[in-house]
């Protein structure tokens, strides 16, 4: 029952977010992670929204693969990670990282180097 890793590229336009969720849902179900689909939809939407809003990337690559008994979703952009806010939050905001960390088992955010920019968010959900 091994299913190959898949990767799909999306433009950084909010209109594609429902398609990103469909993609992740189908791939998670193919790998028998149906029970986690709602958490994964949320996490992948937050990661892609951040890439769209903050990074300036030209494309977003979403990958889905099985790693042992876990499903790993990666969201990669080629933009720049922003430490400082690029839009006023009037005291709200920063819920995205918290929500992602809250719904997956392993959450990681890796920034590129100057010679290879971009941010990779890894979202891992495991069967117990």
């Amino acid at each position, binding site marked *: 029952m091994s299913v190959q890793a898949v990767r799909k590229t999306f433009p950084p336009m909010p209109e594609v977010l429902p398609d990103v969720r469909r993609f992740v849902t189908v791939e998670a179900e193919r790998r028998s992670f149906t029970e986690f689909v709602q958490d994964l939809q949320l996490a992948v939407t937050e990661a892609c929204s951040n890439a769209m809003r903050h990074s300036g990337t030209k494309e977003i690559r979403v990958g889905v693969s099985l790693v042992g008994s876990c499903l790993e979703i990666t969201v990669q952009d080629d933009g720049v990670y922003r430490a400082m806010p690029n839009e006023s939050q009037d005291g709200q905001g920063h819920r995205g990282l918290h*929500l992602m960390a809250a719904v997956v088992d392993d959450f990681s955010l890796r920034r590129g180097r100057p010679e290879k920019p971009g941010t990779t968010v890894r979202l891992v959900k495991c069967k117990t």
Partner: protein
Amino acid sequence: MTEPIFDIEVDTETRSARLTGELDLASCDRATEALAPLGVDPGDIQLELSDLRFLDSSGIRVIVQTHRALGERGSVVLRSPNPHVMKILEIAGIKDLGIKIEDSGV
């Protein structure tokens, strides 16, 4: 015709709105605009969420902004969120902000 991904029906008489489908970065501006007229007069604003299938931090931002715009003049009341939407609202700590959540017991 396929059904729209997100829809919002606003009723200024009853100061309520019904949100249907998926509220995210693609639909949040539309929701904010549609809700703006409800903030003009004082009083609570009822948001019927039973048909909302997806909510993320962009959607929560809409809800919080609508609530804050009311200030002392009222509060947002969220009605009948599905269990996953409820979980997201709880993780986001929405109740701490004075926003009410009511399960109409459907």
